[in-house]
């Protein structure tokens, strides 16, 4: 649940970007970082390997302005997508308030998407969360590439519960903020309802 500091009138929420290796989780955060006013964001931290693969996590703190006198802050994290970093993924899901699943639209990545989505459900359950009950959105990334699956097919396979879904080209920013906004809205709605 979000951290609410009444005397400072601040609310901080944690959003985690999940998905298979090389699907574009870090790219999403990099785009948000690049396009956000420096006064509204902190430094972006990437704990990555020498070949720029995420090793532990990326972290980007964002300030979204005030809502009813409360400063709203979002801490965006991305997990390492590669299968063998599962222990790290579990740690990063701790205290999560909302999840973005970044799916790789490429035809030959469907199995990796399905495996990662299942892994997300299992790892959340281990922390006591039910994926069907927390703020959750799906992004179909790399829509600009030629050898991609139709969105309808991806949606049928990856989005059986019909959560909000977005087409994206994270590299150029298409759909990046729409995705973030959708998950942030769900998180704040949950705060509003006191869930």
């Amino acid at each position, binding site marked *: *649940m979000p*951290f609410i500091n009444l005397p400072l009138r601040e609310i901080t929420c944690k959003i985690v970007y999940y998905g298979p290796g090389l699907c574009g989780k870090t790219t999403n955060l990099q785009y948000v970082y690049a396009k956000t006013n420096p006064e509204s964001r902190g430094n972006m931290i990437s704990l990555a390997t020498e070949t720029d693969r995420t090793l532990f*996590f990326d972290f980007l703190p964002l300030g979204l302005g005030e809502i*009813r006198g409360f400063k709203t802050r979002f801490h965006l994290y991305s997990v390492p997508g590669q299968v063998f970093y599962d222990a790290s993924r579990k*740690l990063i899901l*701790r205290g999560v308030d909302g999840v973005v699943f970044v799916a790789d639209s490429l035809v030959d990545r469907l199995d990796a998407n399905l495996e990662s989505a299942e892994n997300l459900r299992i790892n959340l359950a281990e922390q006591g*969360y039910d994926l069907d009950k927390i703020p959750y959105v799906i992004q179909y990334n790399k829509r600009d590439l030629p050898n991609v699956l139709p969105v309808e097919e991806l949606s049928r396979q990856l989005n059986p519960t019909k959560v909000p879904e977005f087409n994206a080209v994270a590299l150029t920013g298409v759909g990046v903020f729409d995705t973030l906004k959708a998950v*942030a809205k769900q998180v*704040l709605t949950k705060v509003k309802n*006191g869930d």
Partner: protein
Amino acid sequence: MNQQMVMHEGEFLRITSVCDRLTREANAKIVFLVDKNGQLISSAGATNDIDTTSLASLTAGNIAATGGLAKLLGEREFSILFHEGERDNLHISIVAQRVILVVIFDARSSLGLVRLRVKKASEELATVFADLEKKGTMPGGAGSPFAEITDEDIDNLFSE
């Protein structure tokens, strides 16, 4: 699942006061308190020159990774971490199993002094967090300061 943490005025003042005193008594440069999810709760000392948000997030990541190692070895947790640098050192400890107390100090202090002062401060902080826990989470619905939030308010956050 992690319980929602709501910080109240009285406890916030007590926490700030403990962190300030620890900074002085341990001859520390900076003291800060982070929850296990990486959110900064309080900081004291010479914090102007450092990125406390990043420090908080990395500290929590560090504690989480070390906790993972502990479990692999059959330990419940490693409650103290110490990083020694050429100039500055980092003493990290877990308080009341849910928050992380970080002390940054240099040659003007010593590990022994820091450990001694941290022990006392941890006991005081544990009492504060026990009191916070008793107050529980934020009431939902009409009792919540967030009950009045509208969809428009949320949309406005994203308008450029």
